[in-house]
């Protein structure tokens, strides 16, 4: 005699929970990256390869500073989720949890450092 209904047995199994939102945000950032990556590669690339004075002058202009800031924030969040996805697939249990923390810590640190550097250069 099975007391539970089929629906009751299925609830909570294989549910996406917040996964749907995560997936949709990933899709949105993927579309944004198609615009942002070309902008960033050529803008940042143009800033590479000068003396320190030239670099500081270049990145204190509004356009290079804004493009670099935007690309490093949005791009690093996207790459963070890419790395988190890889961790979730290959590393499980406590090591997996710690690896997720490490990936997030690294990514947000990079974002904070790049924003600090841009602010210091631009202002």
């Amino acid at each position, binding site marked *: 005699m099975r007391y539970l209904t089929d629906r009751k047995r299925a609830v909570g199994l294989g549910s996406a929970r917040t996964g749907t939102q995560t997936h949709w945000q990933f899709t949105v950032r993927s579309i944004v990256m198609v615009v942002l990556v070309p902008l960033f590669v050529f803008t940042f*690339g143009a800033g590479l390869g000068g003396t320190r004075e030239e670099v500081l002058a270049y990145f204190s202009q509004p356009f290079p500073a804004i493009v670099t800031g935007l690309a490093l924030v949005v791009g*690093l969040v996207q790459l963070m989720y890419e790395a988190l996805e*890889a961790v979730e697939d290959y590393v499980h249990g406590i090591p997996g949890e710690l690896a997720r923390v490490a990936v997030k810590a690294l990514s947000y640190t*990079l974002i904070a450092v790049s924003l600090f550097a841009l602010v210091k250069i631009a202002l």
Partner: protein
Amino acid sequence: MADVNRGQRPLSPFMIGPYYRPQLTSMSSIMVRISGIVSLGAAVLLVWWLLAAATSDGAFAFIDGLLRSWFGDLVLFFATWALWYHTLGRLRHVIWDFGYCFKVETAEKLGIGMFVGATVLAILTAIVV
């Protein structure tokens, strides 16, 4: 909930190798993941360079010299390739998510397009920058 199996459900096995022949669609997909992680690594160098530029002449001279040496050029070229490839690969996922290009031949063409496109864009970047 006596008869519900919680936590002991089977997980899907790691497919590539024993069950699944490596092919263009799967390899181009795995490369998206690898190129994404490579891009994250390259971001460390770029952020380091930016912070050094904001900090001092000495700090800047070190990382700038590293990135502009032949080895730095090589690293940046492959990082650029990875970033372009990753962007195109994620675009392919968007196209799939919206329900297009699911036929195997089309997906394989997209895979080749990602390799060729990333290579062309990386060379173009190297020429322009």
